[in-house]
């Protein structure tokens, strides 16, 4: 395969009105606002509904656990379920996902165990799941850096004629970083099979979108790279799923990358250590709560007779089960071995690192002996 195919660059302004397939009242949109995308079938929508409900219940549970001090930190995606779940549902098991700290619920949807997702936020180790088993890179904190990894992996796969797609999520704030630009540009120049989902939740911690960009939409950025860009209602899971799905298909068939902006809102604080009352109005949060992505889909499914009471109960139960399981695993303490600190720095351990390890080992042994003495003394008393 030669990569030197002539590709025509895409050169069109994304629609300024977000693409929408279901309106906030749960009605199917059949106007131009649909951008020519088809509403997914009811089975698909029901499955997206189930995933969102489970994801939200998990997210709420983890926030509660964090408030109880079981986790060091947790960046909630409450309110962003349509983006989080819709896009990840559009890729296949063979595809790769490059998430940020915000995207725990997408990882849950991807099938990763709660304990493995949350291990890092609990503070046991930096990353807790098997990246290769799930084809999910570690959740990334340095903003926009993971987007380049997604492009590189996609390019490697392409060189190997391996028809996979890579998907990465970025925040609105992260689009300001140089790495976002370089990732978009490398993807477009190399025509890698990569889908970029910008979750525009309108804030970067406390900084509102207007201080982040002067463009009408973040999807407009696609123009400068000659790739297709879509400005999508990020609280409409049907639209997010349909647009990302089309982008995934195009990427897989050699059509190159796509930039998708999902316009949404973060209902919770940035993380548990944030105080959002300092930078946003309660009424804005209320406004966005009334645009809830799950309720919207629920209304539609109910109106179509596709969500019975029984199904709703079954889904709620499934969500409760995930929450209960999450509580269970997060209220036990992991057994950590401090000496493992030295195990994964280099393939071949360095002599001087082994010296440092030996020193810590001796320290731990000393501490254990002293603790033993104390216990012994205590027992004797």
């Amino acid at each position: 395969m030669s990569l030197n195919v002539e590709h025509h660059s895409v050169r069109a302004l994304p629609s300024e009105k977000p693409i929408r397939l279901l309106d906030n009242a749960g009605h199917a949109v059949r106007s131009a606002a649909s951008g020519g995308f088809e509403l997914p079938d009811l089975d698909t929508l029901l499955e997206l509904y189930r995933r969102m409900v489970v994801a939200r219940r998990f997210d709420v549970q983890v926030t509660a656990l964090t408030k109880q001090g079981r986790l060091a930190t947790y960046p909630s995606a409450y309110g962003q379920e349509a983006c989080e779940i819709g896009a990840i549902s559009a890729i296949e098991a063979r595809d790769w996902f490059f998430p940020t700290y915000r995207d725990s619920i997408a990882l849950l949807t991807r099938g990763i165990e709660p304990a493995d997702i949350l291990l890092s936020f609990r503070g046991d180790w930096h990353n807790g799941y098997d990246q290769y088993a799930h084809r999910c890179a570690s959740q990334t904190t340095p903003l926009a850096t993971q987007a380049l990894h997604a492009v590189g992996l996609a390019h490697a796969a392409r060189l190997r004629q391996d028809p996979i797609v890579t998907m990465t999520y970025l925040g609105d704030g992260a689009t300001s970083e140089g790495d976002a630009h370089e990732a978009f540009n490398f993807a477009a120049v190399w025509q890698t099979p990569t889908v970029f989902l910008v979750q525009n939740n309108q804030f970067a911690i406390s900084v509102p979108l207007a201080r982040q960009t002067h463009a009408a939409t973040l999807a407009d950025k696609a123009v400068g790279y000659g790739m297709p860009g879509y400005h999508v209602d990020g609280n409409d899971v049907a639209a997010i799923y349909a647009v990302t799905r089309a982008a995934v298909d195009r990427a897989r068939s050699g059509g190159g990358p796509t930039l998708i902006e999902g316009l949404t809102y973060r209902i919770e604080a940035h993380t548990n250590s944030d105080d959002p009352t300092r930078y946003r109005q309660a009424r804005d949060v209320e406004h966005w709560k009334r645009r809830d992505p799950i309720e919207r889909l629920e209304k539609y499914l109910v109106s179509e007779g596709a969500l019975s009471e029984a199904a709703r109960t079954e889904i709620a139960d499934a969500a409760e089960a995930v929450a209960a399981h999450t509580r269970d695993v997060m209220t036990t303490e992991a057994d950590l071995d401090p000496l493992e600190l030295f195990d994964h720095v280099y393939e071949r351990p360095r002599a001087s690192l082994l010296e440092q390890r030996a020193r810590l080992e001796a320290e731990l042994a000393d501490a254990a002996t002293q603790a033993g003495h104390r216990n012994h003394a205590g027992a004797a008393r």
Partner: protein
Amino acid sequence: MTATTTRLDAPAASAPTQLTMAGALNAALRDAMAADDRVVVYGEDVGPLGGVFRVTDGLQAQFGEDRIWDSPLAESGIIGTAVGMAMYGMRPVVEMQFDAFSYPAFEQMVSHVAKMRNRTKGRMTLPMVVRIPCAGAIGGVEHHSDSSEAYWTSTPGLTVVMPSNPADAYSMLREAIDSNDPVVFMEPKSRYWSKAALALPVITAPMDRAVVVREGTDVTLLAYGPTVRTALEAADAAEAEGLSIEVVDLRSLSPFDDETVGASVRKTSRAAVIHEAAQFGGYGAEVAARVTERNFHHLAAPVMRITGFDIPYPSPKLEEHYLPTPDRVLAALDTWEWDD
């Protein structure tokens, strides 16, 4: 150590009040902005939020958005535009949210901030301050506890300072803002909530000087930022065991105060440097090398480095094993042959 003469241009000192280090830094910014309208402050979340550590709390309400504002989220952009603002004659004070998030700005820092005076034969100077909430020990998840000082100290042209207490925090930040050269101003996050009674404006030792913060005769502990407390605690504990430890707060990492440190080391004939960063290539290497070069024949033992391990900074639950503690300091000193 903490001379409290007032600045010439400053209002009379207020009555002492309890201030945290974060509060002292906030007061320093406030006073500097009030004193000089060329001082502008920007970065990520420094506006309405007041910074993720609240160091800029209330400043936007007081000074308005033309003096302090939230910039787009891009560190190279923040430093690069600050270079331009400083060229114009402003005195930008910008914030990098954590050490690791200064790395995107590395090129601007090394190729421009550090070099502009030199490149232009002193015609163009950059009076700017880069504040970096630094180091670990606050249970931060990955990338939130790096120690970046060695990157800056090995770059000629940068001035690098790190206060360890509220008084120095105030005084040194004022001095950094007044400096005509760029200053990397590192703020040990784990000390943000430490308190002291201060009568502002407080003036401590010049920011390029180290200070003996505890006198002793047997060993000199060289510490800075978060490890000054570690050293002082170790010294207190050692006293009980009959070991007299002198503690020097380096304060200025670049330049290094050879004079103050040398005097102490020649007195005690033993020295150890303590820092959180990994040992290999850490700032302690420079300290050990130059103290040895200049005082070799006064040393009874090699300068010891008591530091983090040569590994990436660990996750919250494991950081206690990584950080140099007073116990670890004392245990390390025990490994010297003490034949006195």
